[in-house]
C-alpha cells in the first residue's frame, strides 16, 4: 500500500495504491485520520487500488464513520469495477458516494 495525499481547499485527495489488508490497516487508518483532521473532506482515489480485503473494507468503513461523526464527507473516486463489485456484494458499497474520478468528486463537494 502506498498513500499519497494532496490537500486542497475543498478536500484532501488521497491516492491509494496497492492492497489494503489487515497488515496495513493500522497505517491506513492513522494516515487517513491525520489527513482528515486538517481537511474539510476526503476524496479517496482508488484508481491505483488493487485489493480491499475484509480488514481493509472494515478500516475504510470505520474511517467513514469517524469522518461522518465529525461532519466530514468521505467520497470515493475512480473505483475499479472489481473493487466496487466486492464492495457491493459484501454490503459495504451502500455506505459510500462514488464518482468517476477525483475531479468529479471535488466538483460534487463544491456544489
Amino acid at each position, binding site marked *: 500500500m502506498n498513500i499519497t495525499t494532496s490537500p486542497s481547499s475543498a478536500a484532501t485527495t488521497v491516492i491509494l495504491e496497492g492492497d489494503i489488508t*489487515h*497488515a496495513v490497516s493500522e497505517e491506513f487508518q492513522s494516515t487517513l485520520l491525520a489527513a482528515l483532521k486538517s481537511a474539510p473532506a476526503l476524496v479517496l482515489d482508488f484508481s491505483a487500488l488493487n*485489493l480491499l*480485503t475484509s480488514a481493509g473494507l*472494515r478500516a475504510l468503513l470505520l474511517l467513514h464513520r469517524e469522518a461522518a461523526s465529525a461532519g466530514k464527507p468521505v467520497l470515493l473516486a475512480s473505483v475499479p469495477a472489481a473493487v466496487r463489485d*466486492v464492495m457491493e*456484494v*459484501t454490503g459495504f458499497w451502500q455506505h459510500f458516494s462514488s464518482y468517476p474520478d477525483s475531479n468529479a468528486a471535488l466538483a460534487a463537494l463544491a456544489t
Partner: protein
Amino acid sequence: MSARIDAYPTHEIAGWRVRPGRVQPYGPSLVPGGVNFSVFSSVATACSLVLFDKHGGALLAELPLPDSFRVGDVWAVTVFGLDPEAFTYGFRIDGPNDPASGHRCDPEQVLLDPRARAVTGRDVWGTPPDWSNPFPYRGFVVPEDFDWQDDRPPGHAPEDLVIYEMHVRGFTRHPSSGVRHPGTFAGLVEKIPHLVNLGINAVELLPVFEFDEFELSRANPVTGGLNMNYWGYSTVGFFAPKAGFAATGANGMQCDEFKTMVRALHSAGIEVILDVVFNHTCEGDHRGPTISLRGLDNQTYYMLTPEGYYHNFSGCGNSLNCNNPVVREFVLECLRFWVSEYHIDGFRFDAAAILGRDAFGGPLANPPVLESAAADPVLRKAKLIAEAWDAGGLILLGNFPSYGRFAEWNGKFRDDVRDFLRGEPGRAGLLATRITGSPDLYEASGRGPRASVNFVTCHDGFTLRDLVSYNGKHNDANDEGNRDGIDDNRSWNCGTEGETSDPEINALRQRQARNAILCLMVSRGTPMLLMGDEMGRTQLGNNNAYCHDSDFNWLDWAAADTGLIAFTRSAIAARRRHPALSLAAHPRSDRPGSHGFPEVSWHGRHPWQPDWSSRLVVAVFAAESAADVVLYAWNSGWLDEWIALPAPPPGHAWFPEINTAMESCPDAPVGPSFQVGPRSSVLLAMRPTGHNP
C-alpha cells in the same frame, strides 16, 4: 497499549510467540495482538497447531503444544503476531489408532478445525481440485463484525409462512437468470423481487455449510460430464458458509456476502431457514478420508458398532453421535452460532430421526440434543423443522420428540395429496385430513397444524411438473442404471410418459400442477414450494438429481411458465386474504365459525353431504374472528361435477376467486349450483352481494 493484561507471550514455539490459550470460546477467535485456538480431543496424546501461508499454501510453521496448554480435554493456544488474513490452519493430533476400539487418530493428517469459521480449498465452485494436496480443507479466521444496521428477524408465525425450498446455486446459475454473479448468494439477492412477487416469505436453503462438490465425483459416461455432490448433503465445515456459493469466495469474503444476503432477504420480509445436516459428515465409513472429527475423537463424534465400524443410519457411511454430551454441545453451539452471527431464522434438520438415537443407534424416548435445542434461549424463536425419518428405517412422523417446538416435514401430506391428485379412489377422507393440518398426526399431542410443513414436492423426488408428466422415475442420467431414487412416486403422467406436444395432455398437466399448488395454499400448516415449481421446472423425470451441476438442476428463467407464476401468486395471495385458510388450530366441525358455518364443514354434490368414497372433496372453512368464509372444492375425477352450494346467509353470495380450469374467474356471484370441471379445483369466497373488492 494492549487491551488485556494477559495479552503477552509466555513461550516461543517454532519461532512464534505464544501463550496458553483461552479455552473458551472453542474454535478460533481474534484476540488482542493475535489469534486464539481451542480444540477438543479426549484421546489426543499430542496436539500441534499447523499454520500455512494463505497465499500459496506453503507450510508456515508447526507448533507442538506443551501439555501445559491443555485444560481437561481441550488444547488451547494464543499465537501473537499472526496476521489473520495471511494464514490458514489445522491441527495434527497424535493418539491411539485402533479402529477395533474406536480410535482412528492419524498423525499423518492435518485436521480441519470443526469450528473453523471459513474453509479454503473449494473457494470457487467447480474449480478442479489439486488431488495431490493431502490437506485440501484448511480453516481461516474472519472478522466477526458486520454492520447489520437495523436488521430484524421477520418473525412470521408458522401458519403465515410460505416456504420456498431452494438451492443457492441452482436458483441463478442458469445463464437466463441474468444476474451478475450466477449461482451465488449475491445472485440470490438479485432475484429477491421474484420471491416477493410470488408472496414467498421464507426461503429454505439446501445445505450452505461448507461442503465439497467434488466429494466422490466421477466421470459420468451417460451425460459426458461429471457426477458431483451438487446438493451438498455432506458437511465439511459446520461453522463455515460454502465458499463456492459466494461471488467473493475467491477473496475469502463469503461470510460477509452471506450476511449481506440474509440482511437483504430480511428487509424484504423473507426469513432464512437452513437445511442442516447433523446426521452424518463427509468422512464416510471406515474407507473414507480422515478430515476432521474422525482424527480428533472418532469414538466421541460417531456412532460405532462394537467392532469399531460406523453405524450408517444416514445412508452416507456414518452417523454423528448427536446425543453424546460433547457432540450435543457442538450441535447446539453450531445452531446458536448461525442464529446469533448470521441472523438465521430457522433450521430444517436433514434425516433428523438420527438426532433421536443413542450412541449405539437405539431410539431414545427423550433425546437430549432435541430437548436442549427446543429449550435453548438463543434458539427460542427459531423455526425448528425435522425431516422426521432417517435411512435406518426410524420413522417418527407425527411422533418426533418435539418438546412443543419441532415441526415436521409432513410426508403423509405429500403422499395423500399425490394420491388424490392422480385420481386414486377412496382418498377423499385422507385429503380432508391433510388439508385440515393432519389432526391424525398432530391433534392428540396438542401440537396442531404448526407442526405440519406441507409439501407436495421437495428436492428429493419429482418436481411438480414431472409429477404430472411421468409415471416412473427416469434416472438414467445419474449413471446408476436407474436403480437410485425412490420408486414410490405416486405420480401420473396424464396420458403419455414425458414431454409431449399433445395440447390436451399439456392442458391437463397444467391443471394438475395448479390443483397441487392450490391444495398446498388452502391447507392448514406451513406450505412449502419447491424452487421452480411455480415456473414448470422439469428434471425430465429424474427424481434424484443430486449429482448434476447442469440444466437438470439449474432454474431456466427463460423457460418460465408465466401463467403458472401468476397462478401461484394468486393462490398465495388467496391464502393471505383468507384467515379461514391459515389459522393455527385444526378446524373443527363442532365449533362455530362464521355466518352459520362451523370452522369446517364437509359437502359434496349436495350441501352437508360429503361422499368419502368419491373423488370429490368440498370443504367450507369459516373463521370466527375475521368473519371469513371460503369454499374449497377439488374434483379429481375425470367427469364434471355439479355441486349444489351450501346456502349463504341472506345478503351474501359465493364468488369464485380461483378455478384451475380457467385462466381467470368472472367476478360475479355464482350459485345455487356450480360446476367443478374434471380434475379441477376451485376456491369460492362468501361476500355480501353487491360488494366486489
